[in-house]
């Protein structure tokens, strides 16, 4: 109450037009806080940009590959001396025989296009072709014996050093110091490119082919790793989504609160923090040594990753269920819905966006997980594609992150490029999963 005898000349605290000291301090604090926030975001964005730029700049070239375009005479005298086209006899001719045909074809092509070769022996020229090339031609012939005796246009891989030269990884300087490639070979490569015999093009086989040995990085692909990772994700999704959601619903809505459920709760939180390699040891002991499942199999990888993913799905799923306002449960129970109906008609739809977010984060982590897979033998070198589902789950396979790890271990710098390319593939898969999650989440999101 103001005293009527002393009416204040000005309102207490001064005019509204000039903010007082307290307000100024508050506004300054707010401005500072905003600045911290913006700085934090900026740092995160810059780190992300650097990461993306470095991966993209190293990795995109892995999707292109250098090929030689050669007409190869498939000489009957070499490939089928008996002339019977008997598959068994054809198979007896090894890649050495095919290699000779390729060398001959390359020599003829060089001569025909009038390129002068200086300082290169026959073997120097043949080393410019990938060791994989002979196998490519051989399998084409075995698939279609009628080709024997004709001359066919083939697209064969160039060796990794020539490929590196085309992409700028190998230079004249580095070639001078490199025992695997000489400057003269690079000159020849330039000449071949000028004649249109050599060029780079998009390489689907990087995505579809199996891994290759140390000596032929140009032929290495991600096919089996992608398939293995996909199989494992199917196992993880099929097991951890129903189990995780059921466990969360039970613990949140039905379980009595007692010591036992408290214990379970603590253990789930602990499991989420257990290092993933521990799950690998567990998987090795249980699934391979005890249950006798095969090594390197996606099913074992999937089971191990499921164990690892479950707590990481259950915790956000429970949080999402808990966040549904209790008044919704009261409303449903109040009109005579059973507990089960309340949960499935009202609570679960409202919790779905949160559950999906947790699921995608869990699956993303599982997709990128390497350590536990090393322990269960997924690191093995696999050349044969696993079969289709479900039998393929038990065939040996690789996994994307393990393949990346594997390639970075290898000496040839061409594998470093392929590892970056594989990281790009992994990131694309993660982005696709996140996009799918956003789409599904949108469909479930509701206001309340």
């Amino acid at each position, binding site marked *: 109450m103001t005293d009527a005898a002393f009416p204040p000349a000005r309102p207490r605290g001064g005019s509204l037009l000039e903010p007082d000291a307290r307000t100024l301090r508050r506004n300054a604090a707010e401005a500072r806080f905003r600045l911290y926030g913006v700085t934090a975001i900026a740092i995160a964005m810059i780190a992300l940009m650097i990461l993306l730029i470095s991966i993209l700049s190293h990795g995109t070239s892995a999707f292109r590959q250098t090929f030689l375009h050669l007409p190869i005479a498939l000489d009957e005298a070499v490939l089928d001396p008996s002339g019977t086209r008997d598959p068994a006899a054809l198979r007896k001719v090894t890649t050495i025989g095919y290699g000779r045909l390729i060398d001959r074809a390359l020599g003829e092509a060089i001569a025909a296009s009038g390129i002068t070769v200086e300082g290169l022996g026959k073997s120097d020229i043949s080393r410019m072709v990938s060791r994989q090339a002979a196998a490519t031609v051989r399998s084409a012939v075995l698939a279609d014996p009628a080709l024997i005796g004709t001359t066919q246009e083939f697209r064969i891989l160039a060796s990794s050093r020539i490929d590196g030269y085309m992409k700028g990884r190998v230079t004249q300087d580095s070639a001078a110091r490199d025992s695997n490639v000489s400057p003269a070979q690079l000159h020849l490569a330039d000449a071949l490119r000028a004649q249109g015999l050599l060029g780079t093009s998009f390489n689907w086989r990087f995505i579809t082919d199996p891994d290759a040995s140390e000596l032929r990085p140009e032929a290495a692909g991600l096919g089996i790793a992608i398939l293995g990772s996909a199989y494992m994700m199917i196992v993880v999704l099929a097991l951890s989504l129903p189990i995780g959601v059921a466990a969360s619903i039970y613990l949140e809505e039905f379980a009595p*609160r007692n010591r036992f459920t408290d214990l379970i709760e603590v253990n789930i939180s602990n499991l989420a923090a257990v290092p993933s390699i521990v799950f690998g040891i567990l998987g090795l002991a249980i699934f391979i040594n005890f249950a006798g499942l095969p090594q390197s199999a996606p099913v074992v990888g999937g089971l191990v990753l499921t164990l690892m993913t479950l707590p990481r799905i259950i915790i956000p799923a429970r949080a999402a269920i808990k966040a549904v306002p209790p008044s*919704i449960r*009261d409303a449903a129970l*109040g009109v*005579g819905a*059973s507990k089960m109906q309340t949960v499935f*008609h009202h609570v679960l739809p409202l919790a779905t966006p949160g559950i999906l977010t947790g699921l995608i984060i869990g699956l993303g982590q599982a997709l990128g997980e390497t350590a536990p897979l090393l322990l269960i033998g997924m690191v093995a070198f696999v050349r044969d594609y696993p079969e289709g589902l479900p039998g393929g789950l038990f065939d040996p396979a690789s996994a994307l992150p393990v393949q990346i790890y594997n390639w970075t271990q290898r000496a040839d710098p061409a594998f470093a490029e392929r590892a970056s390319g594989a990281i790009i593939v992994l990131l694309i898969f993660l982005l696709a999963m996140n996009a799918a999650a956003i789409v599904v989440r949108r469909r479930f999101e509701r*206001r309340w």
Partner: protein
Amino acid sequence: MNDMSRTETGVNLTDIKIAARKVQVHYGANHAIKDVDVDINDRMVTAFIGPSGCGKSTFLRCLNRMNDTIPVCRVEGEIRLDGDDIYDRRVDPVQLRAKVGMVFQKPNPFPKSIYDNVAYGPRIHGLTRSRAELDEVVETSLRRAALWGEVKDRLAAPGTGLSGGQQQRLCIARAVATSPEVLLMDEPCSALDPIATAQVEELIDELRSRFAVVIVTHSMQQAARVSQNTAFFHLGNLVEFGETSQVFTNPKDPRTESYITGRIG
């Protein structure tokens, strides 16, 4: 008033729907309801009045066992619906709640369409056989809750998009749609304007011709207007219970008198 006259003429006064005896409710260490005896008559409106925090909602929630959902809540004593003890081990609270419907103090529509809000109860209880029948139930329920005119053109809109008062009437429609035998209403008009309040009171009066209604209210006028019996709660005790006309004109307990006249509460 017309509701008074109807009580005196048509309805059997001794027809008891719910009988509560020596009801005690504890929330952990908090003794929220102490030794309450109340009879809810069929085809009558019973009003619960009393200051905030005295236990009106708590007692109301005992009548359809909504307190079961609160882990710390413990109910003792005996509550009989048509002679059956509703806290008997054999009683399924889900079945009980289908008979004893409830409108909550805070409006809590489902985050679904207006139509689905009202249709949910009849659907899960299998009350209708065809879509047309369901449409009819939804329409009559919304009409009774005095909401039909406002929402008939947007039944597919989300119920959560309505105003607070409209949401409360939607909740009333939802409770009415399952045709309960007893309807518990916890301050159904606290968010309503006088027109909607009058409509809801009309609805209560109409419902009373078929089932028992219990209403919690902070408005003395409302209690006097709509109810036949009134219970006055104070600090968890049932201080006075009797015919509304007697409680309001001639209270036996001094606490009731001071509350009604606005001296406590």
